[in-house]
């Protein structure tokens, strides 16, 4: 009788483990297979964005700064209408179309931490909720050579333009625009190579 019970227990434990494993595997495999049933195809990217993402050939690091803790202490309106989940879902969608070129970090910058320092340096727009809590909700894209492009703040009213903004951000950080430089001088400038060090 005792033996039989142990056997049953073993069967149940084994099947729990195999269930976890199968779910995990299935999750990894079937993640990409999806159909968007929303009226405006809210969670799908347009073909233009997909083309740009398909042509990506260098890694981009996306850092989403969202002060989750601060938002939870903030007003009802702030929590409900900040579009955070939507932005995050769309960013995940970008990531899944990018052939592993895009990595996404979601960062909750707490006051007086390195993350908050970074957010300040990137120039994200900040909102003082209380004396200590500061609310950030912006995105930084860092390309292979360390160039940074920033969306200072995701305005909840601009939900329709979100995909465009993001695609523009990614496109411009992979294809940085070379600034056009003109030199005006009475000298024959092209004979002199102008290095910044000489200015000291």
């Amino acid at each position: 009788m005792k033996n039989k019970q142990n056997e049953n227990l073993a069967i149940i434990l084994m099947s729990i483990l195999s269930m976890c494993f199968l779910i995990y595997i299935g999750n990894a495999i079937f993640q990409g297979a999806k159909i968007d049933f929303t009226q405006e195809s809210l969670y799908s990217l347009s073909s233009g964005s997909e083309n740009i993402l398909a042509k990506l050939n260098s890694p981009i690091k996306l850092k989403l700064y969202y002060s989750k803790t601060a938002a939870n202490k903030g007003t009802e309106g702030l929590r409900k209408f900040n579009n955070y989940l939507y932005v995050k879902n769309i960013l995940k969608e970008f990531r899944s179309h990018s052939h592993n070129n895009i990595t996404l970090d979601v960062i909750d910058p707490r006051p007086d931490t390195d993350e908050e320092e970074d957010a300040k340096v990137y120039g994200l727009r900040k909102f003082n909720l209380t004396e200590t809590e500061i609310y950030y909700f912006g995105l930084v894209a860092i390309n292979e050579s360390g160039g940074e492009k920033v969306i200072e703040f995701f305005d909840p009213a601009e939900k329709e333009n979100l995909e465009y903004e993001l695609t523009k951000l990614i496109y411009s950080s992979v294809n940085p625009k070379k600034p056009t430089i003109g030199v005006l001088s009475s000298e024959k400038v092209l004979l002199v190579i102008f290095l910044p060090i000489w200015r000291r």
Partner: protein
Amino acid sequence: MLSYQTKVILKKEFSSYFNGPIGYLFLIIFLFGMNYLTFEPGSGSYFLMRQADLSAFFNYIPWMYLFLIPAVSMKLWADEKKSNSIELLLTMPIKVQEAVIGKFLASWSFVGIALLCSFPLVLTTLYLGSPDIGVIFFGYLSSFLLAGAMLSIGTFFSALTKNQVVAFILTVVICTLFIMAGSPPFMEYISTFLPKYFIDLLESLSVLNHFESMGRGVLVLSDLWYFTLLIVFWIVVSITLISENKA
């Protein structure tokens, strides 16, 4: 598709909900509670959202289920075992799997009816604005699948014990684990000492993640896979358990 025996069990079990007060009590508490939580003037209230959707309703579904689903499933087998009518049932010309599936489907369709009874909310939303029908449909579908998953867990624990209260408590605990598996505070805590693939594993096991992902109106195959696997697995384990005990 279903065998004759399964249908008989399904019918008998389904009508048993309405023979006593349990079914009506469940319907009243579920509908009253859900509507209260939806319109309640607090966090995430229906009117405060100022959006023609039912997210205020669906957000509370898992938490409402947590206490009501185990109440539906606890008597499925524990009752039969306590009154020893299980012996009688299993001597009938009926297979164990037919009995388990029939009982499970009966409880599932009962919860399905409870969900359907919340249709006035849909009508209200249709009257107030022009909601996205696709999103509402998938909200209901994911709620229904979530009910199935939790009921199958409940079936297992009901088959495990004679005592309905024990079945209830165990089901609540396991369902809480499945719901809490992906919640941010919990994940943050365990990510401090566990490796990343383990975190991913836990996250993929979380009911809430799949429920929300399906409820936003996007059909992802991994969500369907998750719910199907969960239901099938717990039902198969219940069948094994009951046929082992019978022998």
